[in-house]
């Protein structure tokens, strides 16, 4: 199946050269309360580059917008004159199923892309929360991942080529369309997770995988988080190769509509017989450890429905609320339980309600906290305690979501994990690629 690549690349659905300034629309595009003065909907790479060039040369500040699902992540931007939306750059440009590769425009909707691939028995192993709204470009720019990262890794393992526009309107690329390619520097890695601060992503070339032949999900209750985490690691060490291992504390489980108790969720994907073997071994191991009963979800549809809110856990729209914050931490897997314990302790001491979800196999965890009304001092203390614990164990913690007033009190939502030299290199990269600080100024680490 090949979608006439070259034709689409130059197709123009009416030239879009003037940003729109209709007010009603603009209010919806506000970021941290800042309403942009205009919005542009380029239909080609060249138009996107032209909007950027014009803004850059007249000192305007620009934010690139995909599905708008991760706008709350980052420090407050220093200014917002123009939003450039990727809404009209949303096509699959090339899909060669036999090559297991895809070339897609940044604004393509992630869920729609997945459903197209599914028809050919394939999928893109990159997960994003709120995938019904999220775009492929946004998932790459924010380095999104979810529970299945344990097996599939993150965006850096699937992006093989990228086309982008620099702030000055230069159109450039890195990588290519083939799955193995070491020509030139790896610009893909630089763009992944750069939060729209280096360039506007336009086209992404990605590797794909065939859909698994069979999958199964199990829920296992535990008495304590550290037991659940330990079980998760024992299973990996046994050579069982789970696809996802997620630990929920009892509040976390409850918020997902499960029974309020510590729960380990495991997904395995494999051939049918191998899945059965994996489940048997998981059951055996759990039996030895705690004697708990393993609950199994079998059919495809219920499994997808089950995991989707798990992926969205820390990004549910209801968390965009007063007195609510979300910490995302990355630690080595053996430290996950310790960080959950710290979160529970700090919560208790500070009269804060927390829900924890931890991808115990790969070390990413989320702490959702509701703090006493208007008591930002307590919230800051709580953040400091957890961040310190994570960072003193060679991990990193960022405050992914927080009310604006709290955010402005935090010096840097991205934490303090980076060294001076790392920051110097990052600042210099930003300076080279976006010297006028046109793109999302201030949003990223150390307010780059």
């Amino acid at each position, binding site marked *: 199946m090949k979608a006439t690549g070259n034709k689409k690349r130059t197709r123009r659905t009416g030239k879009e050269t003037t940003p729109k300034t209709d007010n009603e629309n603009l209010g919806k595009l506000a970021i941290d309360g800042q309403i942009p003065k205009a919005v542009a909907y380029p239909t080609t790479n060249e138009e996107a580059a032209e909007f950027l060039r014009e803004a850059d040369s007249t000192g305007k500040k620009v934010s690139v917008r995909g599905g708008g699902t991760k706008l709350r992540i980052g420090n407050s931007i220093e200014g917002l004159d123009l939003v450039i939306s990727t809404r009209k750059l949303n096509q699959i440009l090339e899909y060669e199923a036999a090559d297991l590769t895809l070339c897609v425009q940044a604004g393509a909707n992630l869920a729609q892309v997945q459903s197209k691939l599914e028809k050919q028995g394939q999928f893109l192993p990159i997960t994003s929360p709120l995938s019904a709204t999220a775009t492929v470009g946004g998932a790459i720019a924010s380095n999104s991942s979810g529970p299945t990262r344990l097996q599939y890794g993150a965006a850096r393992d699937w992006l093989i080529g990228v086309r982008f526009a620099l702030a000055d309107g230069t159109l450039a690329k890195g990588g290519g369309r083939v799955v*193995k390619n070491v020509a030139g520097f790896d610009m893909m890695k630089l763009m992944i997770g750069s939060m729209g601060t280096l360039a506007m992503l336009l086209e992404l070339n990605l590797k794909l995988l065939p859909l698994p032949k069979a999958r199964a999900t199990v829920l296992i209750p535990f008495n304590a988080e550290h037991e659940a985490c330990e079980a998760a690691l024992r299973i990996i060490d046994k050579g069982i190769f789970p696809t996802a291992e997620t630990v929920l504390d009892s509040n976390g489980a409850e918020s997902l509509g499960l029974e309020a108790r510590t729960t380990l969720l495991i997904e395995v994907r494999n*051939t049918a017989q191998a899945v059965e073997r994996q489940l048997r071994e998981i059951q055996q191991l759990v039996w030895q450890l705690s004697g708990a009963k393993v609950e199994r979800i079998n059919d495809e549809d219920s499994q997808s429905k089950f995991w989707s809110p798990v992926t969205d856990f820390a990004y549910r729209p209801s968390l965009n609320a007063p007195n609510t914050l979300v910490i995302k931490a990355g630690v*080595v897997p053996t430290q996950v339980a310790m960080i959950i314990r710290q979160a529970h302790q700090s919560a208790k001491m500070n009269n804060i309600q927390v829900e924890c979800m931890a991808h115990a196999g790969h070390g990413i965890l989320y702490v959702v906290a509701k703090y006493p009304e208007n008591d930002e001092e307590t919230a800051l203390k709580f953040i400091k305690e957890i961040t310190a614990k994570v960072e003193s164990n060679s991990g990193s913690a960022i405050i992914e979501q927080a009310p604006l007033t709290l955010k402005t009190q935090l010096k840097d939502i991205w934490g303090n994990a980076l060294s001076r030299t790392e920051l110097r290199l990052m600042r210099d990269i930003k300076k*080279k690629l976006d010297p006028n600080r046109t793109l999302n100024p201030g949003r990223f680490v150390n307010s780059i």
Partner: protein
Amino acid sequence: MNKAQLVKELIKIFGEDSVLHHVEDIMVYEYDFSIDSNRPEAVVLPRNTEQISQLMDLCEKNKIPVVPRGAGTGLNGGSIPVRGGIVVSLARMKKLVKHEPKNRYAVVEPGMVNIDLSNEIASTGYFFAPDPASQRASTIGGNIALNSGGPHCLALGSTTNHILGLELVLPGGEVVKTGGAAPDRPGYDLTGFIVGSEGTLGIITEATVKTMKIPEAVQTFLALFHTIDEACEAVAQVIGAGIVPAALEMLDQVMIELIERAMHAGYPPDAGAVLLIEIDGLREELGDLQDTIIDICRRTGAFDVKYATSEEERQKLWKGRKSAAGALGQVAPNFYLHDGVVPRTKLPEVMHKVMEIGREYNLVVANIFHAGDGNLHPSLLFDAREPGILERVIEAGEKILKLCVDVGGTITGEHGIGTEKQEYMTWIFSEADLETMRKVKDVFNPNDTANPWKVFPTRQSCGEISLKMRLLKSKPGMEEAWI
């Protein structure tokens, strides 16, 4: 600073026993497994990061080029000091610093030989996945610099997918640690950008790498076909059946004949293509996939399908593939090996054209390739003593790479650009693409002291640059080159 002064300074940093500067001592550092060569002023053998930091400071202040070197098994000229200067051999920094099996990572020094890591940690049940064919000699630092591949990167990815963090000494001597064992360090992915940068950003002095659980079962299939087209069809159908094997390797008829002549791997003379398929994972998984794979091979025209489950049988099936480089050496004094990549679906078409190019230039071309990911390794066989042949070899090689690019592929899948392919970079990258890369390079290495004149085009016309000269200086021992 003259050479005597330089040597004195180097001895201050490294000690007498770690500085080589007499011609007879440094000669072996003047080339790698490519066809280029040039002699450095001196070679140093550091034992720690601090020494490298002092060296980078000294060299930056005096604008002396510094070229890092692992085992020298690179095929692209990347470790050759084309502007002279100091070669930094990482051979003595080869310790396993730590391995945490539960957290699935290890910390190693860059001079550690690839296979040594997997061997050292084997008792824990874990291994390091990247397996370039040079893995018995090449170092992990070198693998990182070139983002090396290998037969098994089809399922597990290239080196970059296995590198979590680095320690890098920048020109000027500043030491930076990037990434780490914990996931999602905030900020730009410096680690990912440094991997594959061919030593042009600084010197890697430590790496945090992923380790993976050794799969409990491996199954290897060897299918014999009459034609490459049939074998390619089998590859397409295996992938189409939703199977991503651990490895999918192919040999063409010329290669089969050469291997047979050199070491009798047991390939029948009428075989037009050998396809090696390897799957690994749980026993049940292999059981489920085995029949499908055999069935596909038969249906697409295989006249014989062998398979192995024991390690001994497996090694037997791999023997022919792994002896390819040696076999080439036995039939021709020289060979020139390329590393183009094409979309998997273009393989049959490209293979026919590669053979046409061979005929057009009257050259024997033997092919071995990573069929699963479309990575070709055509070897042009020749005798460098034959007048006029070098020009033909280079032109034919260029044509093959151009062909790869024309069908949507690239000029290198795992060997890197180095000096060998820098002029071809403009075939795939625009001036804007290259300029953007250069801007980021300048952040790390603004004065081009770290591995200068590599990767980027020299902007001289192809006819004038040393490429052809390099072939003329073709070195003995090339038959041991790694594929």
